[in-house]
C-alpha cells in the first residue's frame, strides 16, 4: 500500500525542506529588529567602545617626582620626565610628601631620583631610579614602571648624543615587536571581533531557537516530516553566515576606520572565524535546547559565553597571571584560542602552526557542544 519514494526523490524532498527552513530563517532575520540589533548595531557599539572609549594605554598618568639631591643633572632628568607625554609630574624633595597622594590615588606612582644617582652616573655605573607604585592596580603600576625606565633610557641616550658626560654601562632596552606604538586599540579591536561573533553565534542563536519554543512554532514544525537534524541545520546555516557578515563588517571598520594594521591573509581570517563559529553556534543550540525560554537562554548565553569570552580569553586580562584553577577553566573557552590568533593575523601575519592548533581545539570544543545539543534536541516535546 504505502509507496516507497525512490532515493533521489527522498533526497530532493530533504533539500527542499532544508532550503525552505533557511529561507524562512533569513526572512525572519531581515524582518526582526532584534536580530539586526545584535548582529550589527551591538558590534558597532562594542567596536567604537574599544576603538575610542577604552584604552589601556597610560597617557598622562599623574606621578610624584622626588629629587633627593638637587643638581643640574637631576634637574635635567626631571625636565625629561616633565616633557614626557606619558606623565603629569609634580616635583618634590621627599618621598613622604607623596605617600598620602599615592594611598589616596591622587598620584599613580612616585619616581625617586635617589641621592646616589649623581655619583653612579659620574662613575659610569648604571644609574638607577626608584619607582614606588600602587600594586593593587597592576596594569597602571606596570606602565609607570616601564615608562619611567624608558624615560631614563631616553634621557641617557640624549645626554650621550649631546656629548655630555661619559657613556653609561649598557642598559636593558625594551622593544615592542608588531605593535611598536603599543596602541592598545590594535589588539583590543581584533579581540572584540571574537566577542561580536560570540554574540551572534551563541546569544542570538539561543534566543531565536527559544523563541520558536515560546511561540509554539517549534511544535508545529516537529509535527511535520522534518527531521531534527534538518531543523538544526536550517537554523545554523543562516546564523553562521550572519556571524561571518558581522565579522566582515567589524574587520572593515577596524582596518579602514581605526587604522588597525592587517598583516595576515584574508583566508586565515575566514578560516579562523568560521571555525570559531562552530563552538559558538553549538553552545547557542545547547542552551536553547536546554531552556526553551528566551529570558533564561539570554542569561545563560551571557554568563556562559559572553562573559568568559570577555574575561577568560586573554582579551582584557592576561591568562598567565590568573590563578591556576582559573587558567584551567580558560582551556574550554573557545575565544581564548581565537583571540591570540586573530591578533596575530592583524598585527603579525599568518603563522599557520599557531592557527592550525587553534582551529583543531575549537573544532574539538564545537564537536562536543554539537553532540550534546543533538542529544537533547530530539523530536519530542517532553
Amino acid at each position: 500500500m504505502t509507496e516507497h519514494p525512490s532515493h533521489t526523490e527522498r533526497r530532493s524532498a530533504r533539500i527542499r525542506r532544508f532550503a525552505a527552513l533557511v529561507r524562512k530563517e533569513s526572512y525572519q532575520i531581515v524582518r526582526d529588529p532584534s536580530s539586526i540589533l545584535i548582529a550589527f548595531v551591538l558590534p558597532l557599539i562594542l567596536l567604537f567602545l574599544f576603538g575610542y572609549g577604552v584604552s589601556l594605554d597610560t597617557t598622562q598618568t599623574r606621578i610624584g617626582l622626588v629629587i633627593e639631591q638637587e643638581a643640574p643633572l637631576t634637574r635635567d632628568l626631571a625636565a625629561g620626565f616633565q616633557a614626557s607625554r606619558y606623565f603629569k609630574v609634580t616635583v618634590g624633595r621627599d618621598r613622604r610628601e607623596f605617600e598620602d597622594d599615592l594611598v589616596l590615588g591622587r598620584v599613580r606612582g612616585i619616581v625617586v631620583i635617589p641621592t646616589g644617582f649623581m655619583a653612579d652616573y659620574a662613575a659610569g655605573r648604571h644609574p638607577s631610579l626608584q619607582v614606588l607604585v600602587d600594586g593593587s592596580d597592576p596594569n597602571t603600576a606596570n606602565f609607570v614602571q616601564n615608562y619611567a625606565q624608558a624615560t631614563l633610557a631616553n634621557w641617557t641616550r640624549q645626554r650621550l648624543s649631546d656629548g655630555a658626560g661619559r657613556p653609561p654601562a649598557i642598559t636593558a632596552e625594551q622593544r615592542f615587536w608588531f605593535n611598536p606604538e603599543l596602541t592598545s586599540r590594535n589588539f583590543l579591536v581584533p579581540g572584540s571581533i571574537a566577542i561580536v561573533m560570540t554574540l551572534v553565534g551563541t546569544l542570538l542563536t539561543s534566543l531565536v531557537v527559544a523563541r520558536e519554543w515560546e511561540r509554539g512554532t517549534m511544535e508545529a514544525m516537529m509535527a511535520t516530516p522534518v527531521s531534527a537534524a534538518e531543523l538544526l541545520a536550517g537554523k545554523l546555516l543562516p546564523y553562521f553566515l550572519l556571524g561571518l557578515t558581522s565579522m566582515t563588517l567589524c574587520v572593515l571598520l577596524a582596518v579602514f576606520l581605526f587604522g588597525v594594521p592587517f598583516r595576515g591573509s584574508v583566508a586565515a581570517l575566514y578560516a579562523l572565524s568560521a571555525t570559531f563559529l562552530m563552538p559558538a553556534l553549538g553552545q547557542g543550540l545547547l542552551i536553547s535546547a536546554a531552556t526553551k525560554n528566551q529570558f533564561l537562554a539570554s542569561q545563560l548565553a551571557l554568563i556562559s559565553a559572553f562573559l568568559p569570552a570577555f574575561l577568560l580569553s586573554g582579551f582584557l586580562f592576561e591568562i598567565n597571571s590568573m590563578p591556576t584553577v582559573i587558567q584551567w577553566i580558560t582551556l574550554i573557552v573557545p575565544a581564548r584560542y581565537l583571540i591570540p590568533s586573530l591578533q596575530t593575523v592583524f598585527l603579525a601575519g599568518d603563522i599557520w602552526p599557531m592557527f592550525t592548533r587553534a582551529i583543531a581545539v575549537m573544532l574539538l570544543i564545537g564537536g562536543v557542544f554539537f553532540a550534546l545539543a543533538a542529544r537533547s534536541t530530539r523530536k519530542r516535546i517532553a
Partner: protein
Amino acid sequence: MSDAAPFVRIVDVLKRFGNAPPALDHVAGEILGGRITGLVGPDGAGKTTLIRLMTGLMVPDAGKVEVLGFDTVTNAADIQASIGYMPQRFGLYEDLSVQENLDLYADLRGLPLPERVATFDELLEFTDLKRFTARLAGKLSGGMKQKLGLACALLRKPRLLLLDEPGVGVDPISRRDLWKMVENLTAEGIGVVWSTAYLDEAEACDSVLLLNEGKLLFSGCPAELTARVAGRVFKVSGIAHGRRQKLARYLDEENVVDGVIQGEAIRLVMRPDTKPPGLNDNPHGPSAATTAPRFEDAFIDMLGGGPGGRSKLAETQTPFVIENGRPVIEARGLTKRFGDFTAADAITFDIPRGQIFGLLGPNGAGKSTTFKMLCGLLKPSAGEGRVAGFDLRRDAAEARNRLGYMAQKFSLYGDLSVAQNLSFFAGVYGLSGARKRERIQLMIDIFGFGRLLDMSAKDLPLGLKQRLALACAVLHEPEALFLDEPTSGVDPITRREFWTHINGLVEKGVTVLVTTHFMDEAEYCDRISLIYRGRSIALGSPDELKAQVVSAELPDPTMEDAFVALVQGSEEKEAA
C-alpha cells in the same frame, strides 16, 4: 472498507509530569475517520497532552497510542507524514506573510510543485484569505490566523487533522466559519479531532471524549450523554424579580442537581422523577416547562451535581443600601487609541447598584481595554469614567479603593504562599490589625484554604487559583467588583460556585462588571454590551438582545446566535 478501522486507538494510556497527579490516567478510546471527534474538558483535563501523544511528539508512560495503524513511539515519522496538526497558538511565523507561511509548510510537508498553484488557490478560497496573501501573519486578526493555521495543516490533504482548541479567542462568526470548513473535510473521509473547553462546541461534535482531571468520563455520541438528563431539565419562567434569590433557594433543594440563570428564566436540572418545587397553580406566578438538555447539564449531572446555592461570602458581606441614586459605575464615551488603532471607541454605559453588567466579545474586541480604563489602570484618550462617584482621572486612588479587581490571567504572586498572598493583598487594600485577621480567616473558611495555606500559589490547580484570586479581590468588601474573564477555562462546578458567590454579593448591593467570551455566561448578567472591534454594537438585557434577532429560522436564538446576527447587522449598516 478502511473506514471501519479506527484512525486512532488509545489503549490504556498513562502520562504523568513530575509528581503531579497523572495528566492522563488510564485513558482509552477510539477516533474514527469521516467525523469530528471532540476532545472535551476544562483546562488541565489532559486534552493537549492527548493530542501531543497522537502526534508522536510525546510518549506515554504506559499504554499505547496507534495512529493510522502506526505506533506513535516507534513510527512517529510515518504518522507525521500523514497528519495535519494545528497547535494552540496556530504554529504560524508572525514575521512571515500569509503566502510565505504557506510556502514554508508546503516545502516541509513535501507538497509537489506542480500541485501547488491549485492547492494554494483552493485553500485561500476556502479560508477567504486571498486578499491577504502579502500581509504578515502577525498582523492578521485572531480568526484569520486560525484559518491560516488550518490552511497550513491542510496543505497536503491529511488523513487525520488534529486541532488543539481552535475555538479559543476567536469571534463566534469565525468560529462558525471554521466549523463549517472542518465539516466539509469530514465529508471527504478525513478524521478530525477538535479539542475544546466550550461545551456548546462539544455538543456539535459527532462523538466526544470527555475528560476531567486526566480521567475519561465519557466516550461516545454527545446525544447519548445528554440523554441521561432528558426530561429532567426545566426552564422556570415568569419570575418577576429576585431571580437570583430564587435560584439560590432552588439550589439548596434536595432534588435540584444544577441550576443557572438564563436571561429572565432559571434553568434547572432535577433528579430523576422530580419536578421543580414550589410552583403553585397561580396562572400569574412562575411556571416550569421541560426544555432540551444541553451538554453542560449532563456534564454537571455526571460530576454529581453543582454546589449548593448558599454563598458564605455573601452572607458575611455588609449590605450596601440600594437607593435609586447615582449609578455606581459610569462610562461616558470612553475611548482609547493606541497610535492609529482605536481599541475602544466611545463606550458608554452605566451600572446601577446591585446589578451585573457584562462586556461580551471575542478576544481583541476591546473588552479588557474598556475594563482597564474603568479601574484606572489605563488613561482614556477621551471620555470619562466614574466608580462610586469618583472621577477616574482625578481621584483614581479613591475610586480604586472602592473596587475589587480580578485580572484575566492569574495575577497573584506565584512564589508567595496562599497565606502570604492573602496577607499581602489585605495590606495593599489598607486592612490592618483585627479586621485584617478577621477578613483573612473568613476567606480561609469560605474557600477552604485551610490545608493549603503554605502552598505556593503557582502550584495550585486552576480552580483553586481562581478562588484565591477572587478571595484577594473581595477582602476589603468593595462596592464594585471588576472580574476580567473570571471563569475562563475552569471546570463547570467551579464556575457554578463562582457565580453563586457573585450572585450572592450582588444581592447584597455589590455592583459587578464582568467580561466574558462565554456566550452562555452572558445570560447571568442583568445587562450586557456586545463589544466588537472596539465598538459597542448592542446594549440591553440578554433577553432583549435575543429578542432583537428572533426570526422565522431562529425562533429561539441562543446568545451566540444573537451575537452573530447583531455583528452581521452592524457590518451591513456600516457597508450601507
